[in-house]
């Protein structure tokens, strides 16, 4: 079959044209195209990397924020708790102090009362003594005048003296 016998002219031209095509396209087409594609791939890759990095940083920042918020909350709670404790303590102290004061006042009042009672008793004793003396004086005086009235008086005085 003539179809299966290659013609020498066509073989020659094919070899020349194809090899030239490979060389020319390689220099003027494939190299810039492949380089361009590679550059773009690098750019896309680096952009993706940057995005990833930014995302990680954002996540870290967010975590930091949450941590700070938690810390702030904790410290607020602590401060409130401490303040409450301080107030409670102060109230308790004041109450104790007041109680002690009251006790003291009560004590001194009792002391005063006792003192005055003592003084009153003493005064009364003095007055009773003086009264006794007066009675005794009057009895002595009456004895001199009337014996019956003297006895009556003594009985009267004695009945009166029981009251104290």
């Amino acid at each position, binding site marked *: *079959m*003539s*179809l*299966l*016998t*290659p*013609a*020498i*002219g*066509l*073989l*020659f*031209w*094919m*070899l020349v*044209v*194809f090899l*030239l*095509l*490979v060389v*020319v*396209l*390689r220099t*003027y*087409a*494939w*190299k*810039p*195209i*492949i*380089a*361009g*594609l590679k*550059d*773009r791939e690098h*750019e896309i890759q680096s952009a993706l990397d940057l995005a990833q990095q930014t995302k990680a940083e954002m996540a870290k920042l967010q975590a930091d924020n949450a941590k700070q918020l938690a810390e702030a909350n904790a410290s607020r709670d602590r401060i409130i708790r401490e303040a409450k404790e301080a107030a409670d303590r102060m109230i308790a102290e004041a109450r104790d102090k007041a109680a002690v004061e009251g006790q003291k006042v009560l004590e001194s009042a009792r002391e005063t009362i006792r003192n005055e009672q003592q003084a009153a008793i003493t005064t009364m004793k003095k007055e009773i003594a003086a009264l006794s003396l007066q009675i005794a004086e009057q009895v002595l005086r009456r004895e001199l005048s009337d014996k019956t009235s003297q006895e009556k008086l003594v009985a009267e005085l004695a009945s009166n003296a029981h009251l104290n």
Partner: protein
Amino acid sequence: MLIHIRRYFTIAIAAALLISNPLRAQHEIIDTTAAEVPNYEEHAEQHSPGHDEEEEFNIGEMIMHHIADSHEWEFAHGLVAPLPVILYSPDRGVEVFMSSKFHNDQHEYNGYRLTHDEKEVIVPVDESRTVYDFSITKNVASMLISAVLLLLIFGAVAKAYKTRPGKAPRGFQSAMEIIILFIRDEVVKPNIGPTYEKYLPYMLTLFFFILINNLLGLLPGAANLTGNIAITLTLAVLTFIIVHINANKHYYMHLFKPTGVPVALLPVMVPVEIVGVFMKPFSLMVRLFANITAGHIILLSLFGLIFIFKSLALAPVVSLFALFMNFIEIMVAFIQAFIFTLLSCMYIGSAIEDNHEADHGIGH
């Protein structure tokens, strides 16, 4: 899958042609003898009665005329562009003239005759002389056009990358970029491996050369370049050379002393391996040639049916079917370019692979 179906279809049509047209078969026998030892008297006798009975339509001749190379470019009947004829003979040196000089009764010019057999051949009238034909034939002209197209297309694409670096691709650039990236990432890179960049320019040129010529060949009146054995032979031989220049010692060791094979089997295995080495480029050559030629034969056979039946009613049916076949041929144009490139990459990849033990007996 589709390739297989189409191949069977081609065989069926070719068989039908041969059976239905015994006249054509006879011609072929004469032609094969005539191609080797041209018989001018017989050719002249054949030719003149052919002109008288214009009614007789030989579909076999028509198809062969359309898929074979020619010294002039016939776009349509009567619309013929002459092409330069370049001849080299040891005694006369280089001779250049236009093919239109052969337009005379004897088809002779300057001591050369253009034979119009199944294949056009320029032979010297003086049989003792030898002449080598380096003419710019229809196929060469078509190849030059495709080369110029490739340079324009990829020159423009490369310029787009240079003028707008770091920008998103636009228009035609992005259309080509998809194919370039596909070849790089799906064909070359996985099959050749880490050193793929060295082979990338060749593979891209190979793919786009085959693709553009497959597609150009589908145009009406165009040449059947990738369905020509000289073209596929050159491409296959180039791949063969690249494989064997770059092959490592594992590859050659495997060829002459396959590991894991009993010594008694070596006399069988070594020839099988060596035959396998030559079968690879041979299969590359035949696959592309046969697929493209078969596609052209199917299309031409369909159109030939109109002239065989001389029926206008048949024309729309045939045209619809031819349209369908044309779509398949466009697909085949891509598939065959892809397969040629893919297999070239696989052959290179298997020859430069570091360890051959792993795939022993699989890749052969």
